[in-house]
């Protein structure tokens, strides 16, 4: 019989690992996976307590958590995809615009964001002909 504390320790380790990963990684997919890991740590806790108390409350909660996590994964990956399409990078430190006006952006000097090659701009057509005349209004009163 494995004691309750062992389960709790595993859960706590998973949670803390996830937390540390979330705080230190800049890749959005990895951050998302870390968040999932924290959820799993919580789920283990719940299942362990369910077994300890001898009822199904914790297991029901866990099922809910897994369902919600599945939906969240779909949404989060879709969002990450959109963000990637905009900036061509998964680095989360590129998304700092939602800060107080006047605050400096925080740059990681040890590991800077790699520069992406700029795309060639599309060619422009030279405008031709004469600008059309615009009717002048005398009075708007």
């Amino acid at each position, binding site marked *: 019989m494995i004691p309750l504390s062992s389960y709790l320790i595993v859960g706590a380790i998973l949670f803390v690992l996830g*937390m540390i990963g*979330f*705080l*230190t990684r*800049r890749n959005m997919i990895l*951050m998302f996976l870390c968040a999932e890991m924290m959820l799993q740590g919580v789920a283990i806790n719940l299942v362990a307590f369910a077994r300890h108390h001898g009822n199904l409350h914790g297991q029901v909660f866990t099922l809910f958590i897994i369902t919600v996590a599945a939906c969240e994964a779909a949404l989060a990956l879709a969002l990450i995809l959109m963000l990637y399409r905009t900036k061509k990078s998964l680095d*989360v*430190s590129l*998304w*700092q*615009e*939602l*800060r*107080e006006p006047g*605050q400096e*952006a*925080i740059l990681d000097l040890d590991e800077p964001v790699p520069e992406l090659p700029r795309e060639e701009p599309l060619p422009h057509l030279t405008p031709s002909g004469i600008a059309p005349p615009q009717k002048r209004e*005398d*009075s*708007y*009163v």
Partner: protein
Amino acid sequence: MSDPATLLWLVPAFPLAACIITAFLGPVLLRKQSHWPTILGAACSFGCSLLLLISLHGITDFHPQFHTNALTWFAIDNFEVHFGLQADALTAVMLVAVTFCGTMIAIFSSWYMHNEDGYPRFFAIMSLFLFSMTGLVLANNFIVLYAFWEGVGLCSYLLIGFWFTKPSAAAAARKAFLVTRLGDAGMILGIMLLWLHSADGTNFKRSLDLNEILLRAHSSPYVTTACLLLLCGAVGKSAQFPLHVWLPDAMEGPTPVSALIHAATMVTAGVYLVARCSPLFVLSPVAQLVVAIIGGFTALLAAAIALTQYDLKRVLAYSTMSQLGFMFLALGAGLRDGNLIVLAASAAIFHLFTHAFFKALLFLSAGSVMVSMGHVIDMRRFSGLRKVLPTTHWTFLCGAVALAGLPIFSGFWSKDLIMDAVMEAGESTSPYRAIYLILLVSALITAAMTAFYTFRAYYLTFHGEEKIPPEAFHHAGEGHSEVAHPAHAHGEMEHPKNFEQSMAQKLPLIVLAICALFIGLASVSLWHIVAFLGRSTAFHVDKPERHTNWLMMGLSTVGALAGLVLATWMYYWRPGTANEVAARVPKLYEWSLYRFRFDELYGYLIIGPLNVWAQICRFFDAIVDGIVDLVGLSPRLLARFLQLIQNGLVQFYALVTIVFVTAFMAILVIWFGR
């Protein structure tokens, strides 16, 4: 159509419809044709007024009167204010003058304003004014009357400030509005007082119906107060002595506006109010005396100022004040002594009627001169225009003889009637008859001065060597030079002989000139206007009768002729004389030229102290504001620190959350684990 009640509704309805059409369609559809709704509306309204007058004239009843069904405007508890119209002789005469002058001036405006920006706006406000003015005259209830009274005040404000980009015009509009508002405050108090005392104590369902109040008026201590308060409103609106300062400044507006609002119609609303309330006023000899003194004094004062003014429009403005003073003098001369009250009030209204025609004519002629001279209005800068502007010259002369009161022309009949009324007041048994005799003498002097300044303006403008200011050639036939569209600015006239070319300019002048000459004679001899006015419901007197006072006629003729001869001598036969006379009495001349320094006096007595008080209030307000701001500042200082953690970095937010949740948990554990 001929049903009188329908006519009563139609008279204000036409201008209102014109106003709405012009206001909504003017800027988008009508543009330079915006004058048509106003002209047609005013003309239809004039037709209805004329029908009304004729049908009232035909009724042989003692008090001919029409009224519409009263609609309930609003009700508070069991106090109801009705909205209804009524017309009697007084109303009908006013309506005819207002709508006829309105039509003529609208036609003239279509020429005068044709190059202005805001052409539709001008005509929309003009229609609104005609609506308010006819409503004011037709109102059968003090509250309705007050509402329309404010309506004409608003239109006056809007039209004085028509060129609102010009600072002087904006200031003049504000001044007119504030000064008349001062009077209106008194008027609303007077109406409240009347309401309070209008019914016997037990009946709470009091009404403000004009007829009810006026017929049940009885002598009691409140009457004098109520009359004086109502007089405040009348004095403000009609630019009488203490509140007269706004009228000369109101000349900043376009000249047709000066003609319609500040000469022919709106300023006479005060006279109308006092005439309408004359059953109340005769109950209080003191109030009547105040009316007469204010009128007589204003007439003299304004005439004295008009003697030396060089601005043609200002001369006419002061002349308007002076003539309104005559009307008030006549109203004040109405004493409850046989048929005197009816004679006096009819004299005032008759003078109002003739004055509307000749003063509108004089203003329109001045407008014609002004536009032709490129908006130069200073009489020193042009002269000898009788060859250049032949039509205007003749029409101005017609207006001048009517205003001066030369025999058989309009002004003569009505002014004579006023003198007659004042003289009878002086001969009555009233305790104040000596004062009335003094006022009579001052009125005679004023009449002579009227003839003098009118012909002074005439000679300065149309006689002497021909002199035309250079502006006339640049802006001939143009709109207001400062706001005229640059695209038209180079439309030069090759010769000033072409100044008068438009029918819209000449037709109103000619029609009004004919009226100015003969309307007085026609009204007296053909239509018996005095007896007709005497049958109006406001003047409840049994036997209105008119007798000819040869002495008064002779005296006023002599006075007018003396003024005319003096003006001719000083400005036509020997043009240098005026300067010699001015040099002989420099103090007197200067005071007249600077309008007896009323503006400066009010500046020191009222505006100065009010400014100081406003500065004190502002200082106090700054202190209170500072305290309130201090309270508002503290959250902002706190936020200055908190906003450091709002740096947009997701991981930082997560870190902050974790740190604080951990701290919270630690506290909980320590707290409960003790």
